[in-house]
């Protein structure tokens, strides 16, 4: 079975999930105890979570074609399918940005009217200092360039990969090494800028040089987990016969390794701020530790202790059923990580995880899976003419 069929049953499930999301939003709008600000905050959390998961598909394809790695080739189509949510994800983010700019919510405090005006009653000198960078036209310009370029490269990779199926040869393979080098340079800067613009600026007074890499590491792990879970599902349905325990082992190693990278970056940022304990920096962690004590530390434990305990052993990394259970846990751990990037800044101490947040998570998940499954069904599940395909098919590590 080389061609995946998107069954009606799965379609119905995903549409049901989307409807749950829509119903949640309608409920939120009608219920006067739910502020629209809360709905928009949740839209940013879920919008970025699934967008960044998808974007990692593109980035990982780029990393692997730049480094000429062979093992990944039989899984390339899964990465591609995940990445094809990037355009839709970009739209979900742009909707939030439009709403923020029109003051339908107050996620970005620096967008408030008069905040940089010395005569205004709520003038903020520090935000006024940042105005050359944090102003709507420049901010929008950066957002559109970044999202546009990311979407563009995602399409380029997909199109070239489909073309390679038809044409063969090594031209596309060598060409994509150059494309990837260029893309990765752009991405290394733009991902940092994006994290400042979209998340760090929520806590407009605060700053951290590490922030961009921290956000990126979270995105990386969510992407790897999504690809693994899809692979697991496809194998269970009898697809992807070429994928063996060694491929699963390697995906498991990435999930394990990147979890440690994430923890390392979390620790570096947290420890240095905690240790130096100076007012301009601790403002970020104080609400997170005081207002969200249990859930914040719980998030750290899930993202660090769970992979450490359960994925250290080779056996669990090669057993895809065990790996799947652990992956789902870490996946939600990283949803919580995104939640803590945004909520304490946007909602102060009022953030909660209730019907709105969970319902919308289902809605976005349904949309994401619908797009990804549709893309999976559009092309053969394994690429045909990649020069390293044979190496990947015979991938074997002990």
């Amino acid at each position, binding site marked *: 079975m080389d061609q995946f069929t998107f069954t009606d049953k799965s379609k119905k499930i995903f549409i049901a999930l989307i409807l749950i999301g829509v119903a949640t939003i309608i409920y939120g709008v009608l219920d006067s105890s739910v502020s629209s600000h809360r709905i928009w905050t949740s839209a940013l959390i879920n919008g970025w979570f699934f967008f960044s998961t998808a974007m990692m598909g593109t980035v990982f394809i780029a990393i692997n074609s730049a480094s*000429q790695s062979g093992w990944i080739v039989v899984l390339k189509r899964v990465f591609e399918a995940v990445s094809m949510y990037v355009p839709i994800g970009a739209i979900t983010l742009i909707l939030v940005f439009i709403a923020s700019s029109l003051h339908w919510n107050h996620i970005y405090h620096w967008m408030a009217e008069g905040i940089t005006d010395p005569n205004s009653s709520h003038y903020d000198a520090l935000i006024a200092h940042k105005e050359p960078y944090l102003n709507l036209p420049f901010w929008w310009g950066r957002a559109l360039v970044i999202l546009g370029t990311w979407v563009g490269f995602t399409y380029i990779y997909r199109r070239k990969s489909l073309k390679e199926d038809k044409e063969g040869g090594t031209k596309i393979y060598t060409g994509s090494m150059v494309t990837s080098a260029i893309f990765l340079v752009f991405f290394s800067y733009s991902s940092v800028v994006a994290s400042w613009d979209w998340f760090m600026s929520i806590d407009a007074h605060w700053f*951290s*040089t590490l922030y*961009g890499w921290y956000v990126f590491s979270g995105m990386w792990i969510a992407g790897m987990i999504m690809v693994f879970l899809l692979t697991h599902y496809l194998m269970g349905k009898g697809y992807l016969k070429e994928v063996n325990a060694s491929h699963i082992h390697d995906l498991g190693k990435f999930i394990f390794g990147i979890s*440690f990278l994430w923890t*390392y970056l979390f620790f*570096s940022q947290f420890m*240095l701020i905690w240790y130096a304990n100076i007012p301009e920096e601790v403002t970020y962690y104080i609400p997170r530790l005081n207002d969200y004590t249990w859930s914040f530390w719980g998030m750290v434990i899930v993202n660090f202790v769970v992979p450490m305990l359960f994925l250290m052993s080779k056996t669990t990394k090669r057993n895809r059923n065990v790996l799947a259970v652990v992956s789902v846990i870490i996946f939600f751990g990283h949803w919580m990580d995104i939640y803590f990037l945004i909520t304490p800044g946007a909602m102060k101490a009022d953030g909660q995880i209730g019907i709105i947040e969970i319902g919308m998570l289902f809605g976005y998940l349904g949309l994401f899976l619908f797009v990804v499954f549709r893309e999976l069904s559009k092309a053969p599940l394994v690429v045909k003419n990649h*020069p390293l395909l044979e190496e990947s098919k015979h991938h074997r590590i002990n």
Partner: protein
Amino acid sequence: MVKEAEVRVPLILGKDVTYHSITEDVCRPIEGKAGKLWWAMFSVAIVLAIWGTGMILYTIGRGIGVWGLNNTVDWAWDITNFVWWVGIGHAGTLISAVLLLFRQKWRMAINRSAEAMTIFAVIMAALFPGIHMGRIWLAYFVFPVPNQFGSLWVNFNSPLLWDVFAISTYFSVSFVFWYIGLIPDFATIRDRAKGPVAKKMYSLLSFGWTGNAMAWVRFEEVSLVLAGLATPLVFSVHSIVSMDFATSVIPGWHTTIFPPYFVAGAVFSGFAMVQTLLLVVRKVLHYEKYITIQHIEMMNRIITVTGSIVGVAYLSELFISWYSGVEYEGYAFLNRATGPYWWSYAIMMSANVISPQLFWFKKLRTSFVFSFFLSIIVNIGMWFERFVIIVTSLHRDYIPSNWSMFHPTFVDIGVYLGTIGIFFVLFLGFTRVFPVLALNELKSILKSSGEAYRDKDSDQH
């Protein structure tokens, strides 16, 4: 084992290379006599080493007042050299551990000399905290040992102490890793040795290696376990070195990006040093078949990638220093770029961020001469990076009446050049008595990636 893809470049050149000829090539420098070039380099190194040792003894005898330190700049070349050497010591373990985990076959030709370099570089680094204590005979105080002076313990809250632990752990694991890899190669030399003394020596060194299948299984398992242990160490060592600075509240030192940025910088400088040494080894020992242009190109790519990561970090820091709105932070960076030490900042930026970008041109990254030249530039640039971080952040602190400049004395310079001398004495000595290429590991890729076998037959080996 399946045939390697056509698009892969062979890693061992020459149609006539066999298992036997690899042994011959690797053992030749050990069994034969040194060439003129080797003696020339060794003489220069030994002169520097003797001079440096003299300067170190002079420092110990007179105290660190003989350095150019003053009340404001109370940490300068000593710690700069320390961080520089530790950074250089990163590449070896990265190549042996991380590239092993990523199954990079090209590491086989370079891992041995890179690991040796790591060991020697870490020794050079460890020298500096020792001598900059002033009273080196009290050096045991850095270890948390029970003592006779009441409850006098080291300060566990201090990153300087964490550094002692981090570096000693790193050194031990790197050393074990290096040695385990050497065991089968020592056995090969033992079996060929003619003189009774050499035979006895290599026999002791090879721990009675028999080369049976079980021994190889254990060898591979131990390599993997050590690689797993060493990988986090690659991160931890330089992260903790960065915390020596970042846990303080000195503008220019206290910034959250320091740990990962120091790690990237360390890998960057380490690869540059490996590149320098590899090109020397290739020339002096005639290893053109094994250290190919493909290896050099791969190294150059890693240098470009890590150099660019460092570039992202420099620019992030620069931007955030303005964005933060903190006056001191902003001034620290303005002073770096435009103050009296602007030239060191300019050297750092151009050598570390701009110069590696030249490797985007295939012609340059596949040129031996240019690669050698650029690796030296990067080594210089990375020394200046540490100088910029340390001296420019200190020399103008919160109180302008304290502002001062740093002027190195001949002792500062002598100690620094001396460590380079000692390092090269050790490294050149290594090339005479140790197998410089991991000969048994090289053999494991001969049939899959050697030009002699790869394209010959299509059936599975």
